């Protein structure tokens, strides 16, 4: 469904300068959960911004369901890393979620229904009248996820969405994301620098090496539904962990 081939991105006017993304190829199937794993500075964010159509790329091709991506695609929703900066503090939680729907041709009543459903899916039913800054960090990121879900995207792009919450909240959010992924039958492309998180969530993990090329790929055959304790006790989890650790380490000098 999402197809990236020979993607190359060079910042600035000189096309022979060092690329942020050199030669990236991968595909994501419909309803698949793919994690992109890479250390900081490996071009993850640049890649994601190209995929979401927010910045133009230098060469190569990105297609979503056969359509070339030239601007932000209609079927795509984006969850940013910094929830406190992507939610609008002057709108209530409910209005934040409903805001993009109004310009999507969704009528008022349906928008309200989609909003309530999304609030319920992320466990924030009854908090719709709060303002984002009245909620904890984890709850704010759940609002951002709810906004993406209410948009009913075919594919959800997530840029290290759980990087700035504490560990306890984080595992809760991971489980929540897996539940809504099942419920909303969507495709997820999830960028992270956390090996455990990538294995726990994904069907498939792609290891990105600078300058953003796929250095390694593993399929995660751990049973679903996943469980924070049992899944991580599984010997296969440990094996994948070792494999990915070597793959990341083999490509870069750890900073």
């Amino acid at each position, binding site marked *: 469904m999402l197809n990236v081939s020979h993607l190359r991105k060079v910042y600035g006017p000189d096309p022979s300068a060092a690329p942020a993304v050199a030669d990236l190829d991968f595909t994501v199937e419909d309803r698949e959960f793919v994690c992109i794993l890479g250390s900081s500075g490996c071009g993850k964010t640049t890649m994601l911004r190209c995929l*979401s*159509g*927010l910045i133009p790329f230098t060469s190569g091709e990105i297609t979503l369901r056969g359509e070339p991506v030239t*601007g*932000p695609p*209609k079927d*795509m*929703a*984006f969850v*940013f890393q*910094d929830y*406190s*900066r*992507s939610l*609008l*503090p*002057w*709108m209530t939680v409910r209005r934040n979620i409903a*805001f*993009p729907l*109004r*310009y*999507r041709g969704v009528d008022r009543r349906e928008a309200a229904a989609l909003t309530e459903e999304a609030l319920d899916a992320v466990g924030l039913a009854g908090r719709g009248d709060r*303002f984002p*800054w*009245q*909620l*904890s*960090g984890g709850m704010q990121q759940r609002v951002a996820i709810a906004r993406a879900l209410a*948009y009913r995207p075919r594919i959800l792009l997530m840029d290290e969405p759980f990087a700035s919450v504490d560990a306890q909240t984080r595992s809760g959010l991971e489980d929540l994301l897996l539940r809504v992924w099942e419920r909303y039958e969507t495709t997820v492309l999830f960028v992270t620098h956390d090996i455990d998180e990538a294995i726990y969530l994904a069907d498939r993990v792609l290891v990105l090496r600078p300058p953003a090329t796929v250095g390694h790929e593993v399929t995660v055959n751990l049973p679903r539904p996943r469980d924070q304790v049992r899944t991580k006790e599984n010997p296969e989890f440990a094996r994948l962990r070792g494999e990915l650790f070597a793959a990341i380490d083999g490509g870069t000098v750890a900073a």
Partner: protein
Amino acid sequence: MNRRVLGLLLELALPAALLVGYGLWTAQAQSFYFPPLGEILQYFRDLWLFDRVGSDLLPSLLRMSAGYLASVVLGVALGLALGMSRMLRTAAEPVVEFLRALPAPALIPFSLLLFGSGDSSKIFVIVLGAVWPILLNTIDGVRGVDGQQLDMARAYHIPLGARVLRIILPGAAPRIFAGMRTSLAIAIILMVVSEMVASSNGLGYFVLEQQRSFAIPEMWTGIILLGVLGYVLNWLFQRLERRVLAWHFGLKGLASPAAAKNTGTTKRSARSAAPSSDGEV
């Protein structure tokens, strides 16, 4: 005694002391320039309750409101355009810097030539002085809007009009209000100054006229009224700001006096400080 009452008493103590001090001093000083407090108050009641309200206070207020509102509309609209377009900004900057460095009263003679001695010339001078803080703050506010919010808007296909009205304008609003507050003071000053030159009514005209006819207590009543006017307008402005920017004060942990006291509040511990604690949102 609860804190509120104590605070109120503290606020009233200094003004009361100053008034009493002035009253005691003028009673024995017999100064022509500083008439006794009782006399000033007597004249104040005779003149401003409500003899000259229609003839002087109202015209002044109308000129100031018209000039101030025009400044807000003009400043915000131009500020949005200049803030969003680097090209426009570059092109307009020298002119803006020149015009804002120009003392607005210097244009009173010219505005009299252009508009005559009616209201238009005074409104023109007020706008010429009051528009700049709003314009410059709006530009800065627009440029300071979070890039991630704009990325979000693009990713979700929010059309340009909604981006301006629902993201850029509210995002810049705290700065816009800061500019509007400065401009309010400037508008009052220019109202008075413009009325002191070639005018036949208004507070500025009144104060100057009384001084020229050596009616000193009457002159003082005009000055006091101007002070009260500035105080009341500022108070109204603050109420409006608290209302419109409730989210901003909440975000900063200042939604209510109770939350403001914990100055070390982080965003999260301000959670309990709902804007509703202001009692009006």
